[in-house]
């Protein structure tokens, strides 16, 4: 068997395999779980590792060559007699590969963590089926190049996530959080479908690249743009539509919360793709009705004002909260504000060097925030596993019993609030210094809220880990090994990204930034 030919075949078919393997694995899992528990656990990690292998193979090829790969379902090429056939296309460029890497890392950590976190619950075969379905939907949302396919994968992901958020059915609050999540996700997705219908009615195309090539900024296009950005911003958790995020993240099991972070980031990726690629031509050329203000300045101003409100409200609510996982949910809302701030500042300063640096910082912050908030959720789950408490008023003095968990929490604390030398500082430094040149007030608010976030997490550290011995937690032991391995896996990435930020920026972030600023290469993947 020739290994070289197999690699090429694998590389050509990898976009389809990345979505098909978790989907097939999800449907076979109930059969395999009849054999035994450890066989089912091994099957879950085997599927996720196989998917991650394909993700890293595809990402390695795209990020080093800078090319765009397309995969056509149901035929050989996208064109028949020089016109477009009705086929679904997956199109992968630098930004897709970047988000897929984040999703793969979070999925591996989530599955390893849930081996021992969920061991004493019943109904675990349904749990692993739903987790694999959620991973399949998340990868489909990231890799697709077709608008209606994007909507279908959003719905798959939200149905699987809702059932997982409501996993603790013996308590009422978790089921209520699941209900809130599915109502909000359903309304958002229906408005996205309305926008897709409006765009289809004008251009007779559902493909993102064809839409990007043909779009003119008519009145109906403006309505569709508002609906798309509104629906996707609600899924990404931008204030004032963020209120479902602390409820859903706070009541879900911790191993589900870390994969939910991945799906929220996939929604944010969808918003960036719509703004920069599908409407990319009209961002640069269209002007407004009144004067000669170009469209990207208006969109940049809207995004920056939403971002400032997001950061302030996320951090202020996190300071007052007394429930461990809800506080991490509010911190996640604040961190999404930083990403949006960088993107908005890049739009306001399009074409200058500090605009480029702002976009680099924003994209670098996506992967840093996913890793940091993921590690904090895993630590919160470890504390809940040992003490069965989530309220900070009842915890205390845990650093005596759980030494490794305390070290991981300190790493997560310094990373999420932007302390040197960890990875949060590298991306936040880029954001501070580029947004300062757009407007000094933005940088002032960003630095102030970083310090408030540090204050909020030091409060958690003091309440939960320091302090005298509490007699109720006398018999507390360290958490099982698989949870420590998952936490250590993410902490290694955090320390590596912090100590060597240049390697990460040159190899992963710069191709993603070039891919998202350059919408013509996305169109060139299909129309040669």
């Amino acid at each position, binding site marked *: 068997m020739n290994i070289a030919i197999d690699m090429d075949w694998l590389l050509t078919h990898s976009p389809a395999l990345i979505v098909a393997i978790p989907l097939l694995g999800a449907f076979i899992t109930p059969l395999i779980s009849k054999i035994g528990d450890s066989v089912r656990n091994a099957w879950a990690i085997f599927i996720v590792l196989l998917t991650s292998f394909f993700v890293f193979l595809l990402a390695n090829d795209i990020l080093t060559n800078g090319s765009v790969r397309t995969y056509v379902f149901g035929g050989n090429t996208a064109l028949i007699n020089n016109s477009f056939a009705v086929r679904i296309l997956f199109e992968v460029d630098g930004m897709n590969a970047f988000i897929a890497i984040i999703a793969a890392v979070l999925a591996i950590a989530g599955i390893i963590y849930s081996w021992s976190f969920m061991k004493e619950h019943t109904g675990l075969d349904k749990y692993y089926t739903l987790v694999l379905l959620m991973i399949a939907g998340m990868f489909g949302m990231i890799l697709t190049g077709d608008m209606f396919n994007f909507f279908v994968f959003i719905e798959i992901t939200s149905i699987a996530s809702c059932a997982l958020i409501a996993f603790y059915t013996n308590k009422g609050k978790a089921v209520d959080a699941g*209900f809130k999540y599915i109502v909000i996700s359903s309304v958002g997705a229906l408005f996205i479908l309305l926008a897709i219908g409006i765009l289809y009615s004008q251009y007779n195309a559902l493909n993102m690249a064809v839409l990007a090539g043909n779009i003119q900024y008519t009145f109906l296009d*403006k309505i569709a743009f508002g609906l798309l950005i509104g629906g996707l911003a609600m899924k990404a958790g931008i204030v004032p539509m963020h209120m479902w995020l602390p409820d859903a993240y706070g009541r879900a099991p911790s191993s589900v919360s870390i994969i939910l972070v991945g799906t929220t980031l996939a929604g944010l990726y969808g918003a960036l793709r719509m703004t920069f690629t599908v409407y990319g031509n009209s961002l640069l050329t269209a002007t407004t009705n009144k004067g000669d203000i170009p469209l990207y300045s208006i969109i940049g101003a809207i995004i920056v004002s939403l971002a400032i409100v997001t950061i302030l409200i996320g951090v202020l609510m996190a300071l007052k909260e007394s429930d461990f996982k809800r506080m991490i949910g509010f911190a996640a809302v604040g961190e999404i504000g930083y990403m949006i701030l960088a993107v908005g500042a890049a739009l306001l300063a399009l074409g200058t060097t500090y605009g480029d640096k702002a976009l680099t910082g924003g994209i670098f912050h996506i992967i840093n925030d996913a890793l940091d908030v993921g590690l904090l959720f895993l630590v919160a789950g470890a504390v809940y596993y040992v003490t069965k408490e989530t309220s900070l008023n009842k915890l205390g003095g845990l650093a005596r019993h759980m030494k490794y968990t305390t070290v991981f929490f300190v790493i997560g604390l310094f990373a999420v609030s932007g302390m040197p030398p960890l990875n949060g500082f590298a991306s936040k430094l880029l954001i501070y210094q580029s947004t300062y040149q757009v407007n000094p007030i933005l940088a002032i608010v960003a630095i102030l809220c970083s310090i408030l976030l540090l204050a909020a997490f030091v409060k958690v550290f003091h309440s939960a880990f320091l302090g005298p011995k509490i007699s109720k937690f006398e018999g507390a032991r360290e958490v099982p090994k698989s949870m420590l391995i998952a936490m250590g896996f993410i902490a290694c990435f955090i320390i590596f990204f912090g100590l060597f930020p240049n390697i990460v920026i040159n190899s992963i972030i710069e191709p993603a930034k070039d891919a998202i600023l350059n919408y013509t290469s996305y169109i060139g993947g299909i129309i040669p």
Partner: protein
Amino acid sequence: MISPEFLYSLLETLRTGSGVWNPISWIIVFVVAFLVVYIVRGFGKEDSQVKGEKAKVFLSGNPELEKEKMHVGGSNLYWGFTDMLSWVYRGLDKMHNGNVSDYIFWFVIVLGIFFILLGVL
């Protein structure tokens, strides 16, 4: 893969638009400063805690309970800061009341603002 260029690129500094940041130099400076502080601390007096009668000055006459009850934690921390901002938190708590209809109401308001801004401007 481990080549001299790779090892050299590990030590590169990150150039932002208007500054530089090198984590390796920061760690070296931090470790040196930490060693200096640790050595200077070693010259201090051992066992200089106040106990018993001398400690009553610090407690201003309150009785000293056992350690478990004296721990200030949870929602009692940062009381001064959150009390100063209580006018902000009154409005924010009304926004986060957990009612799903109010969440969709905020969504419709933001959609309306988007339509007005995109359509008129």
